């Protein structure tokens, strides 16, 4: 097969929007490649890159554990596959998560991204907001941030690069080939962050 093979983890959440954004990113970069929904360990093993979309982190984690996908994703990330975790996806990638109200959580996590996350950090749905943010370190000076019951990062390890902050709270990070954001680029029509992610895969190949 020619070109890159990028999967969107399709256990639960906003899969279709990420397929669209990733396809557009590939096209704009003038690359060859396919973007597919993935659910099973077999589908995941063929991938060059993976997006874990927004949704409910407890559901995505628990159900990926059930059918062995979580284990396969771990193997792939360990072997260097670039991965992009959005909101719930970033939580699933992290080492530790707690909820702002309920407290410490015992939910299945991938244990890769060296951060501690506070879930629902900005409050409940009524407090969800849009705001312009920036990620200057990766050349994106303006980006429409869509924060839906969003988490934030309350502790970051030494290998974690902070890409963006909102009012002193960390909302986007990079660690090696792992990107995590608290906000939803796939809902905005701005594909610059998806392009940056696809670029990581290109470099690797």
């Amino acid at each position, binding site marked *: 097969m020619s070109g890159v093979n990028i999967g969107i983890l*399709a*256990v*639960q*959440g*906003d*899969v*279709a*929007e990420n397929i*669209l*954004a990733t396809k557009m990113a590939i096209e704009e970069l003038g690359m060859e490649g396919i973007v597919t929904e993935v*659910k099973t360990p077999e589908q995941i093993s063929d991938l060059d890159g993976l997006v874990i979309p*927004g*949704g*409910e982190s*407890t*559901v995505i984690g*628990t*159900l990926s554990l*059930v*059918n062995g996908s979580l284990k396969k994703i771990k193997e792939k990330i360990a072997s260097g596959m670039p991965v992009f975790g959005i*909101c*719930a996806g970033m939580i699933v990638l992290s080492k530790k998560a707690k*909820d702002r*109200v*309920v407290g410490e*959580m015992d939910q299945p996590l991938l244990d890769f991204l060296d951060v501690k996350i506070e*879930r*629902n950090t900005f*409050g*409940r*749905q*009524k*407090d*969800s*907001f*849009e*705001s*312009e*943010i920036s990620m200057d370190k990766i050349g994106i000076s303006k980006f429409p941030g*869509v924060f*839906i*019951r969003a988490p934030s990062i309350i502790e970051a390890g030494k290998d974690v690069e902070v890409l963006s902050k*909102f*009012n*002193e709270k960390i909302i986007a990070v990079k660690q090696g080939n792992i990107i995590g954001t608290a906000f*939803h680029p*796939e*809902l*905005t*029509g701005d594909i610059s962050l998806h392009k940056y992610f696809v670029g990581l895969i290109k470099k690797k190949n």
Partner: protein
Amino acid sequence: MIPLSGDLGNAKGIVKEKIGSFGTTRGTSTLKRGFAHMLKNGVVMDVTTVEQAQIAEDAGAVAVMVLDKLPSDVRKAGGVARTASIRIIQEIMDSVTIPVMAKCRIGHVYEAMVLQETNVDMIDESEVLTPADENRHIWKWDFTSPFVNGARNLGEALRRIEEGAAMIRTKGEPGTGNVAEAVIHIKNVNTELRRIKSIYDAGDEQDLISVARELKVSYSVVEETASLGRLPVVNFAAGGISTPADAAYLMTLGCDGVFVGSGIFKADDAKERAQAIVLATTFWEDPDKVKEAQKMIDERQSMLGLDTKNLELRMQERGSTA
């Protein structure tokens, strides 16, 4: 990207404020509809207590819906069904991390205001409760919190979207344990969507305008829906889902997810059933996995259910003509 057809850019529910040096906006269609997008491929479970909410969360529910009584008990009790006790809603909000929804009566603007102040994540303007105003649903653009509404056909769905609903669910016939009506409603919507899509593809604007008149909605919302070939908001199935196979079947009909009302906590094997329905909804494309899920439940412990042909109260008809 989220289709924003029928969006009221200047709605009263939109709040602009500064947080630190950042200008922020809340209550936009992107945020309301986007919230519903995060629920896709998930199961929302009706609960009446903290204990049930925790069972639902552990089973992998994507959200819980708090009621005072489960729909089948509402049916049995008769009388007036109103929004749930605020104290119980708050207790549940403090004990689970997943979103918490609650129902208000159709047209009852102030029950909805109370739920918004309580900070529930989504408000269901629901036919399960006794309607307060069947002629005028709530004007949902006035709210910062998102709403979900029931619909039996495309016209109802689009009218609710024009009033500001961020999500649609089929009505089915709540509290019956019988999935038949939910199946009919989703098929109705699908048939009508195919019809307007074919008119759109043929480029027949005149015919599309007559559809808008027939459905009593604006041309623009019909046009965008027709171009998409699906509802412009997330669409879940609801009403009478009792088993993993029920949930999986509705997913095959193109639903984005399911609401389960009485089907779980009116069964005697609620815990296993909750998990099984989540598994079947996630892996609906794989008949073997759905079989495994179906094996987790015992049919002798399903709720008995009702024949929908001989009902005294048809909740689905509430608010359907407006």
